[in-house]
């Protein structure tokens, strides 16, 4: 698997994602800038967490005007795999690559803590190493992670089985306890919890590794170092 992580000005989980994919999951992973316009050499492009452009207007709102986003749209349209984590998820919704929007957490406070997720779909490019119903512990760290979609969109999401992860105990007010959702085609996933923060036992758990192993499995080729 050849992956890239897009580093926007203000991204701050870019190096963490790269570390998880490269040092821990053992796949190729490059950091690229927001002005990159050609993504054709990658299997997977990841949009990291952080505060792109300070998140000053709305989280993710400004990043979507970066040159790389046009390329990312083409990449996704062509079937490339796109993973957005936290701010990455927010950027993907702002850019229209994923449905819905992320609103301020129900209690208006930033929340950093481990949460329990339930795997809803184990047949996606991002979750094929998990079992349906499996419970995962992943950290969240966000102020605007309260997923919102209007009723029709929501009904369509559920009907198409686009919800991949749900909160077991909803921390932020997200509709239908949605923690991670794909586009209709299933090749773009956005999730608020941070899988890259749960890949080493030393740091408290390895439940997030499955996301990266799933992508490696999906894109074949690369060998998986250290089974889940």
């Amino acid at each position: 698997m050849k992956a890239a992580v897009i580093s926007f000005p203000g991204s701050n989980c870019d190096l963490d994602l790269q570390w998880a994919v490269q040092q821990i999951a053992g796949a190729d992973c490059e950091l690229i800038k927001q002005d990159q316009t050609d993504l054709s050499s990658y299997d997977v492009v990841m949009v990291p967490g952080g505060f792109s452009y300070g998140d000053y207007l709305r989280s993710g709102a400004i990043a979507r005007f970066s040159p790389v986003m046009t390329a990312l749209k083409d990449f996704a349209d062509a079937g490339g795999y796109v993973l957005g984590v936290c701010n990455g998820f927010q950027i993907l919704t702002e850019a229209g690559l994923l449905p819905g929007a992320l609103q301020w957490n129900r209690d208006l406070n930033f929340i950093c803590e481990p949460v329990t997720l339930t795997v809803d779909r184990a047949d996606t490019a991002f979750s094929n190493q998990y079992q349906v119903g499996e419970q995962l512990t992943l950290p969240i760290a966000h102020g605007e992670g309260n997923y919102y979609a209007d009723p029709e969109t929501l009904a369509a999401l559920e009907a198409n089985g686009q919800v991949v992860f749900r909160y077991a105990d909803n921390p932020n007010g997200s509709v239908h306890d949605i923690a991670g959702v794909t586009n209709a085609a299933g090749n773009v996933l956005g999730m608020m919890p941070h899988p890259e923060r749960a890949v080493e036992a030393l740091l408290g758990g390895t439940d997030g590794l499955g996301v990266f192993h799933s992508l490696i499995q999906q894109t074949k080729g690369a060998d998986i170092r250290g089974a889940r």
Partner: protein
Amino acid sequence: MAHVEMSPTAIAEKKSYLDLGLTEAEYDRFTELIGHQPNDTEIGLASGMWSEHCAYKYSKPILRQFWTKNERVLMGPGEGAGVIDIGEGKAVVFKAESHNHPSAVEPYEGAATGVGGIIRDIFSIGAKPVAMLDSLAFGDLNQPHTQHLVDRIVAGIGGYGNAIGIPTVGGETNFDGSYTRNPLVNAMCVGIMDKDQIQKGKAAGVGNALIYVGAKTGRDGINGASFASSEFSDDEAADRSAVQVGDPFMEKLLMDACLEITQQHQQALVGIQDMGAAGLVSSSVEMAGKANSGMALDLDLIPQREANMTPFEIMLSESQERMLLCVRAGFEQEVLDVFAAYDLDAAVVGHVIDGHQYKLYHHGKLVCDVPVSSLTDDAPVYEQEAKIPEHLANPAPDFDPIVTDPVATWKAMMAMPTIADKSSLYRRYDAQVQTNTVVLPGSDAAVIRVRGTHRALAMTTDSKGRYLYLDPQVGAAMSVAEAARNLVASGAEPLGITDCLNFGDPTKPEAFYELAEAAKGIIQATKAFNAPVISGNVSLYNETNGHAIYPTPMIGMVGLIEDLSTITTAAFKHADDLIYLVGETHGDFNGSELQKLQTGGVSGRLFDFDLEAEQTNQAFVLSAIRQHLVTAAHDLSDGGLLVALAEMGFANGLGAKIKVTLPTSWGFSETQGRFLMTVAPENQAAFEALNGPAKLIGHVQAAPEFDVTTVSHHFSVALGQLQTAFEEALPWYMNQKA
């Protein structure tokens, strides 16, 4: 509120320098030093540079006595931050800074810009910031004003740290009435670097350029340094001009760009310093002073956000997110290009010149021409008079607690705001970004691994204002000891400390006495734990309407763990592990949380402190941990033995059964130098063979229940009951109406 310029004669006649915080004697001294009547700009610079914040004019005689060097210290106080060797080619850099006054006026931005400021100190040394800690003190939490301050200050710290991507991994939150109008907001930042890349804030080499980078200068926070060096009164609460808005996005770019320069453009860089208190003047003149250089700046080249700023305003503005670099002649473009790639405003604004004068030009006119030393080394230093405060000269009688219902007291103690769970606050901080945090907030010290080595760093902040109020010297030594105890419980060996000395008005003999005595205690204890002071900060005038805070030195300590497998946390791990109490317990209650619970305050003579026993106990605990004989360790501090025991049980829902030969009330005594540890049954013999100062008092049990036998009582309580009291106290208080 724009600044109106006055002529040198008008300044002398109208004595307008008095409004800037300079005395007549200081005005005369400055006039003599510079050899002419100071003009408006010059007197403004003096007021900033001669403030306590920049010149340490009252605290210097105290700070000089600190113990600042051992074999590991690479750089002590004097630069942006201190540096200590941690082996394997790496060094740790750390410093703490207070932002008490700004946070009292505007809690969110005051706290946020405090975080921003301390981060700049760390990366100006060339270190990558890897962790933040925050030490907070507030008034009583049943006051709506306090609730508001807690909410906004915590939001501000998180707002900045979370956005810039530095994990906030620890800290402390204390509550006492003395902080009602003067909350303490001390932020500490820790960085890691290759030990051969240390940068200094100096401007040397005639012809070398000064490059300004970062946010444009505006009229925000003008002369905040002298603002922070005076007391509050009710009128000044309405003085709302000294507020800046933090921009963590800008600082992230600035940090990344500056680190790129310190790491990859070393041949271009002579020196680098952040613009903190007294903004452009302090950073530039200090850089010249350290290299014994002269300097000329052209103020028209300073990036400005507002029109028609006067030299006074430009030089004393405390706009945030700015840095000053001295760059070798010929390399200017190379450095400007790096900044341009990050979309940052940067400009060459001046040069190092021959001689020792500090010259400023504005619209082609020379507006300041003074010796560099008149603003730095020649600033006044005062030896103050010290006088023992009345409550120390004639202490109240000893407090002797009576505990008739042990379970009720235990629950009430768990809910004391200073003791209660702080997770509702620290969950608002990203503690994990950068993915190095091994021990999260909630245990004793936080632990960060050092990438590229087998090592980890443990870090903590501790302050004990209540103890210092009853005995500043012993209380300060206890603060250092508690910090060390927290590190040791995590498996770390203390490396060094940074401090924020939060005190009252130093011109009052009683307040100065407290400061001088506290320093003595810090010196004794730092030597005892081989943890020199490598950096720090002073915040005086923490008074409102004449009422000072408790004297509160904040101790930030960093320790080294050489082997990741020896990292230890406070949580019980397994049922049947044996519980040992390390250290002697006495009836030590004056200044304790139990005294506060039962009497509403603290009074009397502070209980004794056996520094030697503390050293012995810490050495024993560390050695047992390093031999892998310990499954959990927790230091005893606020609330003593029973509080610590309960805290150890909460994380994994494990109870305990213990028996102690102490009176029940002594279960809440705060005798120093103690730990609780657990040892797996199979290691009992090996552990006891160490012959340490540890006594077996019971064991961990699977049942979520604590069962305690003392000489006077036998009682048991469900873990859940104590945990509810512990966890719900802060959220409950925060929702109280007046």
